[in-house]
């Protein structure tokens, strides 16, 4: 049973468009919500992360929106580029450090 539910499974966006990936969780003990980016043949790498006392965090073209009451968070990629084509995982972590990951979203940005 997935503790973090992620959608959509795959996403195709035109270059310059906005990519949006959504995640939901149930366990209110989760205290850290990162997004990881994975390119083929590589391990996942941290993209951006947020803590539950903040509703939004922006780093360049990447923004996390966090809704604590709804237990949902999302990743927005503005001005999507072909180089953003990758698999994206949301995750939620307990204070002791172990994380639970969503199923992943394969993003394709068409030139």
């Amino acid at each position, binding site marked *: 049973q*997935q*503790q973090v539910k*992620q959608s959509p*499974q795959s996403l195709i966006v035109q270059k310059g468009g906005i990519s949006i990936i959504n995640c939901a969780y149930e366990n209110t003990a989760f*205290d*850290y919500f*990162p997004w990881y980016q994975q390119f083929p*043949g*590589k*391990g*996942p*790498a*941290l993209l951006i*992360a947020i803590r539950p006392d903040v509703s939004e965090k922006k780093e360049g073209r990447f923004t996390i929106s966090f809704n604590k009451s709804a237990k949902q968070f999302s990743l927005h990629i503005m001005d999507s580029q072909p180089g953003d084509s990758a698999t994206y*995982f949301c*995750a939620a*972590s*307990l*204070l*002791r*450090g*172990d*994380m*639970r*990951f*969503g*199923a*992943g979203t394969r993003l394709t940005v068409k030139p």
Partner: protein
Amino acid sequence: DVKVTQSSRYLVKRTGEKVFLECVQDMDHENMFWYRQDPGLGLRLIYFSYDVKMKEKGDIPEGYSVSREKKERFSLILESASTNQTSMYLCASSFRGLLVYEQYFGPGTRLTVT
């Protein structure tokens, strides 16, 4: 630069064999993790360790065991490999403290059990 290395990129084993997957990190991280990655299921936590000789079960520990004799090394053991353990195995490490820290991943080992 943090480096997490895994002993093999590709491994082919036969059903019933004992399999060892090795992971080494060079950043003096306290926490180490083993995940398996399958299409449509994401990353699922098998075991993690927050100190030498300490281990905690994750969500899917059945059929696996782990060993952490040194801080920098975390081994995943498949006692008797089965075909349903064919998967990508990812190791990760992180600091341990009052705050949760970024996990750094190795490149993965693609294990095929025939």
